[in-house]
């Protein structure tokens, strides 16, 4: 409860003489804008000139990482699909041909148009297989084209691995390789 005596009502100030005359203020405003006529433009001529990347954790197009043996790092655990608030990840899991993991994604579709680029999938992934990249200028001629499949997502990885290396390249699976401890120490400091 605010007490009556604590309330200060401030009357609005009156206009000063020059403000009442209006004209001096107009001249002042015109002077300000006239100065801007000769200032350097701040426009970035986009397709020709691109802004340098300012933030490291920019959330652009996704990529599916490859591990050091060049296999897709994803273990088809469905964590990202579950975490995704936009329901835009669809995974079909299959039995993995490699013995250090049980499953791998036979199909991995990500609808880049539905995605809200929140980064939840990246947070959720236990093996850091899905990551958001600094790439932002993706275009397509149809909606279907903007649903990125596994190949496209892996291709994004090829394109961006030099700009943004994998955070924890050694995590490959959870079949008792002992890499888990390391990852839990390294994933902090995100976001």
């Amino acid at each position, binding site marked *: 409860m605010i007490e*009556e*005596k*604590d*309330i*200060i*009502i*401030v*009357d*609005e*100030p*009156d*206009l000063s*003489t020059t*403000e*009442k*005359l*209006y*004209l001096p203020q*107009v001249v002042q*405003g*015109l002077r*300000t*804008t*006239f100065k*801007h*006529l000769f*200032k*350097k*433009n*701040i*426009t970035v*001529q986009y397709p020709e000139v691109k802004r340098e990347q300012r933030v490291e954790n920019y959330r652009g197009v996704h990529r599916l990482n490859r591990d050091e043996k060049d296999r897709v790092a994803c273990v088809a655990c469905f964590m990202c699909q579950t975490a995704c608030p936009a329901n835009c990840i669809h995974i079909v899991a299959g039995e993995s041909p490699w013995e250090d993991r049980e499953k791998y994604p036979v199909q991995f579709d990500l609808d880049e148009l539905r995605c809200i680029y929140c980064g939840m999938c990246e947070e959720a992934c236990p093996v850091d297989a899905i990551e958001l990249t600094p790439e932002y200028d993706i275009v397509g001629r149809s909606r279907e084209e903007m649903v990125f499949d596994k190949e496209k997502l892996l291709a994004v990885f090829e394109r961006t691995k030099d700009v943004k290396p994998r955070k924890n390249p050694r995590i490959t699976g959870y079949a008792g390789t002992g890499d888990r401890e390391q990852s839990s120490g390294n994933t902090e400091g995100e976001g």
Partner: protein
Amino acid sequence: MLELLKDQFTFSVILALVIVGILNGAVAYCIYFERKISAWLQDRVGPNRVGPLGLLQPLADGGKFVLKEDIIPANVDKPLFLFAPFMALVLGFIGFAILPWGGSVDLDGDGVVDVIAQVADPGIGILYLLGIGGLAVYGVVLGGWANNNKYAYFAAMRATAQMLSYEIPMGLCILIVVLTAGQIRLEEIVLAQVGNGNIWNICLHPVAFIILLTTVFAETNRTPFDLAEAEQELIGGYHTEYGALKFGMFFLGEYAHMITGSGMVIVLFLGGWHLPWIPGLQPEDVSIGAMLLKMSVFGAKIAVFLFFFMWVRWTLPRFRFDQLMRLSWKGLMPISLALMCYTSVLVYAGKATSLAWCLGGELGVVFIVLAINAMRTAPITGRQRNMPAITVHKPAGAP
């Protein structure tokens, strides 16, 4: 051919065609420069993709206007809806007819003045411009009415009220010039300024010039007086329902109106085609070359004005409606009325063209305005004065 040209009627027709042709292009490029200047004032680049420096942008805009689907909404008043844009465009352009573009011309060099470089020189002179200016609001009003849309209707009401309030100071300021020159024809007003020892009317009546300029802004619906198309409140105002070429015509009409308005101010206060002491720009110079030179000087003066219009548009925010009314009825009108009375006294005393007397009077008026201003208080916001007084409490320890 020359014989034919020496006929004022033929000459007028050709001049009209040439001027309307040039002005059509000029109006299109006004839109380009409007965008460029707004960009420069905001540290941006502006249109630069269509053609070199974006110079083909007006063509692209025009093409877009032509090719867009021309929708006529179901509930509009169809004849008026179709008529309003024509009205705006035609009334914007028609005022050019009596602007004195280049003085008298002697076409064959025999020392006899053959024609005047003016499409028409009616005896009513400036009254014609006033009439056209008054009619111009009909484009807005009819558009707003025919739209059958409440926002557009509001815009039409605002435009009418604004026009009513600003025509009066405008007329009074024009009257000052007419009294000083003793003439009502535009060409004669220019000649009177030259004849008065090269003293343009702006030197005699700077305050009246500022008032006239303000009212021209209001007449052409330009910021800060563009209440009739306030995007934020009225979603575009009177042209809410217009699209395609019909919208484009409103657009062109506005710029054409701007050019006419600046032409009028230039003729009345800035000596029209005249520049002092420069040979070729004096009334005695009547060759064809001199005519072209005079036309370009007039055009250059208009260009400066257009730049000023755009500069102001991208500097000042829009007025609130009560401020608009107050400015006209309580500010501009008494001042211009006082100036007008003073000028008529000067005319009676035969001192109408004396610099000292005129400027003295202007100074006196400015002084009175300052004095009244100092006595009056005005709140920053529009809080009405008849609301209950605010009591100010202060807690015990407050500063």
